């Protein structure tokens, strides 16, 4: 019997109400979800299904109305905004739909700042950023500003920024939405590789069907409720990952 890894993030019966009075809307209606290391999970659902709201709650950016959220064993219920920021700093990396890079900083500096907010300011932090950018295929773009990078390259900088501090959880919001087919596949392959090779929990919110083949698990949400979950059979890699791994081995 294979031991099930401990979840690094666990959400139990999360409810989120938005607005007030007559305009009050229940965006998430009792969602439960656990993320384990080494898995790329997709949270899929139509627009307005509550997936981004749930992602914000899982990312300790938005507080739930009720329910329990545990991040690396820490329950978040009574934490204030600075303590939640501390949890994000220690355990999470974020990737945004619009990349959210700093236009006045180079690719390297954009990654560097993620370590800087974590108090990692020494020379090794700079080396680490260069290493991560090389790892995402941007060794030749270290000193380029976001305005001079393609959408795919910008998203890869964002991925590098998310993983530079070696977080146990990577949360991505529509990571392929602004990318063309080729770049969308490249970014998803990168996220899958991060999950597999670096044993991180990666959760991507998406409604892009191109991303399905990269997932270890797909969680479906509709009208604020988790309505289904599909898991790839144990021991099998997603086809693109298997193919990528093969190619990487062939290239030595």
């Amino acid at each position: 019997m294979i031991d099930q890894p401990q979840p690094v993030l666990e959400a139990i019966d999360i409810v989120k109400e938005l607005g007030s009075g007559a305009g009050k809307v229940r965006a998430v209606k009792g969602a439960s979800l656990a993320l384990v290391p080494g898995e790329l999970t997709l949270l899929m659902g139509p627009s307005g299904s509550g997936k981004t709201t749930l992602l914000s709650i899982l990312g300790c950016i938005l507080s739930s109305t009720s329910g329990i959220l545990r991040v690396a064993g820490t329950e978040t219920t009574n934490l204030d905004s600075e303590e939640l920021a501390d949890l994000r700093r220690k355990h999470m990396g974020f990737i945004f739909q619009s990349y959210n890079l700093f236009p006045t900083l180079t690719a390297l500096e954009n990654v560097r700042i993620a370590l800087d907010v974590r108090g990692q300011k020494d020379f090794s932090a700079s080396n680490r950023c260069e290493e991560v950018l090389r790892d995402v295929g941007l060794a030749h773009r270290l000193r380029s500003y976001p305005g001079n990078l393609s959408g795919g390259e910008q998203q890869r900088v964002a991925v590098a920024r998310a993983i530079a501090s070696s977080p146990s959880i990577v949360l991505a919001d529509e990571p392929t939405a602004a990318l063309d087919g080729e770049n969308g596949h490249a970014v998803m392959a990168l996220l899958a590789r991060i999950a597999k090779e670096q044993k991180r929990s990666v959760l991507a919110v998406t409604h892009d069907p191109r991303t399905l083949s990269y997932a270890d698990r797909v969680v479906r949400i509709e009208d604020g409720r988790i309505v289904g979950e599909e898991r790839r059979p144990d021991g099998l890699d997603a086809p693109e990952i298997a193919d990528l791994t093969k190619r990487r081995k062939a290239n030595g």
Partner: protein
Amino acid sequence: MILTLAFRNLFHDRIRLAVTLIGILFSIVLVAVQLGLYLGASKMITSNIDHANADLWIAVYGAKSFEDGGMLLTSRERHQALATPGVKAVIPLIVRFAEWRKPEGGSTRVVLVGTDAEDGGLEPFDLVEGSWEDIKAPEAIAVDRTYFNELGIKGVGDTAQIANGRVRIRAVTDGVRSFTQSPYAYTTLNRARALFGDGDGTTFYLVQTVPGADVKQVQQDLVNRLEGAEVLTKEEFRDRSLKQWLFRTGAGVALIGGALLGILVGTVIVAQTLYSSTKDHLGEFTTLRALGSSSGYIYKVILAQAGISAIVGYILGISIALIILVLSHNTALPMVMTPALAFWLFTLTVGMCAISALSAIMKVTKIDPAVVFNK
């Protein structure tokens, strides 16, 4: 990275940076000029008091300033003062406004100072031509070269008339300006008395105490002995003269008011531009917050922006202020800049920018990191 981000945020929008720097520059120049003029005026008002070698000043009751000593004291007060324990010397000094008739016609007012340098009271200062020995010569007088035009003279050897008698320029001072715009004219005590036709009248007595004497005690003893006269310490007389010319006339209030206006305008301009810069970069600050940065980290970025603005603005502002300082050297009201004022201005600039950053900081405290997912 805090400094890098602050620097890039500032220099990203050059026009706004220029507006910020002009705001700080304007503020620094205005405050430096106003306070420089205030210091310059203070120096002019107190220069004779500062140069006088006196622990205490005896003046007629109600004397307003060095130039406005009021009624004359007599030799009776001098003898009473000399008989007071702790008093080493009591030196007479005459200071009175007088009519100066120019050699080519016309007249102006001067402040005639009658003093005998060898008494060790008000000794010569800032003489650039001639000496106090020369002033002992018949009809001799010393004036400041800044006022040659106003006095209708060209230099040493020229003559004019004061009150009842003729005077000849025998010595020239440089930089001894008068806040009242009536130039100081220095001569001997006896000639001053002769010009005014006074007997042994004196405007002030400069009191020197014996070494180790308790000046406050001597002052009190003199007050008890002298009727109708006031006894002031050097500091008290300086303060009274400053109050008379700077505050009773409103000149000092105008200078300080101008400086406060400069601070206010500078603060408002810097606050406005920092707020607007923060608003423009709010998305980035929100991203930082979502990435897990503490509020303190973001505040430091904003404060660093304010600090960089302050340093660059100060360097530009103080440079222009120093140019104005040089240009004002030969004017009737020269500006003064001291290392203490320069340091105070720097502290003021940094403080002004820090206060200006408050509005921007208040803006970022309202950041909701959840909006990063709604872009």
